[in-house]
């Protein structure tokens, strides 16, 4: 998995590309979010459009990332969910936990 970020009006937009699966990407996601939080970012928007595969470990890391950010008083939201990831969040009811956006400008403005 590759992560690239840019900051828009105080919102750290992190674009994830590739796989977030057990042993490949799950630990990386934890590190990316941990680093972003440790650098003082409290508004994090994860652009998921480049995520090609995610499994239950990846979903678990997304949940862990959400908890990490909110426990530090911040907010984590999702942008551009691929259809299959959207499905996985729906069947586990996690879609009720995450705020999801299709438009970056709207997402940034929501923080």
């Amino acid at each position, binding site marked *: 998995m590759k992560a690239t970020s840019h900051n828009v009006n105080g919102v750290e937009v992190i674009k994830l590309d590739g796989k977030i699966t057990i*042993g490949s990407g799950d630990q990386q996601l934890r590190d990316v979010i941990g680093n972003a939080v440790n650098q003082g970012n409290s508004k994090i928007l994860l652009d998921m459009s480049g995520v090609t595969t995610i499994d*239950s470990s990846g979903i678990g890391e997304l949940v862990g990332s959400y908890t990490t950010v909110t426990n530090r008083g911040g907010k984590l939201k999702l942008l551009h969910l691929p259809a299959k990831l959207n499905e996985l969040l729906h069947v586990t009811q996690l879609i009720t936990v995450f705020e999801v956006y299709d438009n970056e400008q709207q997402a940034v403005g929501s923080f």
Partner: protein
Amino acid sequence: MERDGERIEITISSRFENIELVQVIAEHLCENAGLDEDGSHWIGMAVREAVANAIKHGNKLDVSKKVYATFTLRGSELEITILDQGEGFDPTAVGDPLNPQNLMKTSGRGIFYMRTFMDAVQYSFSPSGGTSLVMTKDLAKGSGLASSKV
């Protein structure tokens, strides 16, 4: 189904990077049997979760231990068996991930996804060790998930 009676077996060592090999076989078998791409993807996902559990919870990441996957097509029914060489683990010990108190847990969704994507999921344990997981799916029914109906 033109491929009635097809049987494919693969043995892998307990490395996470081998999961995708088994997943790809499952997806290709499903597509060759006439299932659409999305339906094949969800069955591949169930296989991915099953093999990951066999490696992590069954064989406990011991690369000298093997995971055996068998795919058998009988008519439109696909039977998938995943066998590990571990001590056995209790799949019922995992709480319902839809229970509000479990919703924010970072693990415990793999078996739930398997049960969601397959028609039946059954574990059995050999007295000599190892966990056997048998999953079945009637490919003629499709995946039953919303994304496959679009």
